[in-house]
């Protein structure tokens, strides 16, 4: 049996494939065969290394040598020098941009790795149902450190110094939030974890709870110690059964170990956690609505002040933080505020987890330092746009966010830059769109969502969003006028200015940002009655070209509404008043006689 001594890994990501990694594999294999090394050295194509700008990449195992910008003709030198003589091929090594020194071992070139996993540090590493694996990876060490070495004031100061901001979307400084809650005195205070993840396409909170529930439990206990709360509540949506199950298992295991309960680590501090289930209303991600829902009231937001820090759950001071925020916290105490502070940009520290979705090759969960550009996220980590299509926009911030375009690709991602570009961080959904997406329809999709999810408490959101949706629908149907576009903009501003909570204040964002960035597309819908992406059905016409049509009648037979007529062996036509634009005829036609106009 062959037992390989060496492996040559060739990047098979889309970018590298485009620059001939297939040919490299072939050449390497050929060279090895010629030298009779095929039983000792194996050539394998792998997934994307996430370093596309220097592709194609070839990595040699077991010595971890990392070759960049390899050409098929380099196969010979790699085999002759590296494989046979054991000498690294210097001209193919990566050069450190700072000092032009070659770096051979990929273990020493962490900086090329765009991702840094802090919140996701244990996801996919530990068994989430086994507390021992978590403790072996430092779980509860931060809690122990805080309880035994720090006063609550010192611990809060550390959090302020770290610069951590809320990852749920708002970006409020976490340390400040804790400080305010700690200064309000009451016989009972509460710590609440907001696990009501509602943005379409965002699933980082679910993944953290499913992959590393202990990081959240530990951080909630630290939070309790800092603000003087002994009770913690996790508000989690009932649609996340696996996350709930793993969280329950974790809480029980922590209790068994005595790390939750009375007199934790003999310090006199007591803390315990309970779960509260949400029914999946988007508005319950807003903290006042969330608290009302936990109290058994309707999940409707109320006016702030009073802030939950003064009067929250059952009228007691309450601190609400999001799952991802909590997941960062133990590391901050273990490695220090200064360590965390150095990661990220001036005003946004640390990393952010994004759920990459849409028309992108590597759909998935990623975690990047703040300040990484959209281009790096989409083209390097995400592996570029699917099927080689053209990038059109990326939607961040979910229904409260906006669409960013080509011109924003090099903007470093942080809270403030995203807001300045007309979008927002939100909880971290990132939906990538290509040339086949119609931006008016995208705006309508998000409005569809907010109309469904508006709690109905205040008129601007309840009625205004419905009207916005109607306007967009009219435009998509090709019945819009220029006046409708002005109405859209005016109404959007009214809704933003007069709504009570974050839902209404941000719901017109998808409309405003698409109006700003894709005005041409709106204009085409209104003026030319045209949808360039071919999404708006009412603006399309299926037309049979009489020239290639042979009159086979296949289209007429497949048409579900009988819109196609014509003599056998004679040209057919489609009655546009009957046609429902299902496209069945076009799929069926063997003569390419049917096209979309």
């Amino acid at each position: 049996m062959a037992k390989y001594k060496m492996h040559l890994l060739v990047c098979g990501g889309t970018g590298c494939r485009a620059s001939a990694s297939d040919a490299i594999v072939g050449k390497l294999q050929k060279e090895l065969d010629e030298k009779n090394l095929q039983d000792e050295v194996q050539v394998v194509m792998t997934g994307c290394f996430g370093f596309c700008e220097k592709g194609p990449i070839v990595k040699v195992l077991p010595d971890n040598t990392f070759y960049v910008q390899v050409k098929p003709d380099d196969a010979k030198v790699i085999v002759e020098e590296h494989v046979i003589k054991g000498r690294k091929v210097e001209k193919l090594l990566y050069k450190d941009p700072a000092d032009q020194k070659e770096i051979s071992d990929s273990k020493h070139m962490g900086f090329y790795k765009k991702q840094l996993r802090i919140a996701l540090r244990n996801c996919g590493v530990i068994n989430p149902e086994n507390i021992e694996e978590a403790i072996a990876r430092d779980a509860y060490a931060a809690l122990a450190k805080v309880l035994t070495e720090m006063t609550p004031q010192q611990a809060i100061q550390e959090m302020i110094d770290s610069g951590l901001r809320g990852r749920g979307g708002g970006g409020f400084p976490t340390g400040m939030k804790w400080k305010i809650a700690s200064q309000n005195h009451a016989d009972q205070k509460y710590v609440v974890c907001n696990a009501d993840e509602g943005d379409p396409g965002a699933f980082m909170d679910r993944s953290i709870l499913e992959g590393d529930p202990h990081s959240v439990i530990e951080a909630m206990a630290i939070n309790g110690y800092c603000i003087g709360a002994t009770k913690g509540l996790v508000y989690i949506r009932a649609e996340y059964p696996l996350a709930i199950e793993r969280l329950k298992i974790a809480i029980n295991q922590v209790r068994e170990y005595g790390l939750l309960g009375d007199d934790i680590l003999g310090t006199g501090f007591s803390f315990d956690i309970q779960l509260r289930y949400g029914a999946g209303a988007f508005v319950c991600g807003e903290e006042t609505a969330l608290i009302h829902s936990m109290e058994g009231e309707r999940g409707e937001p109320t006016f702030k002040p009073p802030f939950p820090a003064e009067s929250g759950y059952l009228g007691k001071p309450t601190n609400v933080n999001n799952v991802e925020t909590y997941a960062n916290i133990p590391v901050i105490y273990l490695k220090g505020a200064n360590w965390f502070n150095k990661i990220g940009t001036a005003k946004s520290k640390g990393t952010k987890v994004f759920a990459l979705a849409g028309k992108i090759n590597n759909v998935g969960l990623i975690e990047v330092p703040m300040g990484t550009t959209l281009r790096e996220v989409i083209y390097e980590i995400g592996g570029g746009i699917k099927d080689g299509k053209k990038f059109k926009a990326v939607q961040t911030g979910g229904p409260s966010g906006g669409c960013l375009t080509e011109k924003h690709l090099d903007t470093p991602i942080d809270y403030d830059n995203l807001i300045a570009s007309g979008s927002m961080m939100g909880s971290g959904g990132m939906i990538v769109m290509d040339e086949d997406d119609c931006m008016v329809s995208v705006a309508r999709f998000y409005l569809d969502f907010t109309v469904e999810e508006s709690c109905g408490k205040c008129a601007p959101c309840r009625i205004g969003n419905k009207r916005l949706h109607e306007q967009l629908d009219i435009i998509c149907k090709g019945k819009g006028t220029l006046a409708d576009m002005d109405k859209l903009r005016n109404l959007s501003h009214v809704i933003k200015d007069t709504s009570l909570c974050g839902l209404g204040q941000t719901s017109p964002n998808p409309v405003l940002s698409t109006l700003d960035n894709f005005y041409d597309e709106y204009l085409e819908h209104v003026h030319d009655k045209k949808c360039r992406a071919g999404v708006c059905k009412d603006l399309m016409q299926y037309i049979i070209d009489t020239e290639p049509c042979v009159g086979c009648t296949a289209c007429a037979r497949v048409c579900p509404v009988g819109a196609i007529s014509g003599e056998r062996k004679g040209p057919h036509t489609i009655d546009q008043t009957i046609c429902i634009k299902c496209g069945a005829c076009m799929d069926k036609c063997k003569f390419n006689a049917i096209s979309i106009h």
Partner: protein
Amino acid sequence: MVKVKSLADLQNLKANLQTKVDLREKGDSAERLVQVRVAMATCGIASGAKKVMEFFIDELEKRNIDAVVTQTGCMGYCYAEPTIEVKLPNQDPVVFGYVDSKKADEIIEKYIKNGELVPGIIPVNYETIDNNNQ
């Protein structure tokens, strides 16, 4: 279950558990344990990770391979679910994507038995907090 009552307790416990996990992960010459981790978050399970995990548990036993199969959370490679990580003794772990029963069989026969890599490898493209000491 012994309760953790003090900081010293926790530190001892951590040290013990770490040795236990290290022993399993790094092994020594006598250690021949193969480790398979299956990403079992909602996304993984929806794409068939449970079946893959059962396949590994059953087949590794049937084929007399000394191995530990555990579940873990999301590794982040949603496009390539189900994903697994295989750690052979004294080697760096390797992540494989798009693993179904057929692929799992190939991984056992080729990679676990012979150290021969099979297509579907996902290179690690992130930095961990352990090696980030800027």
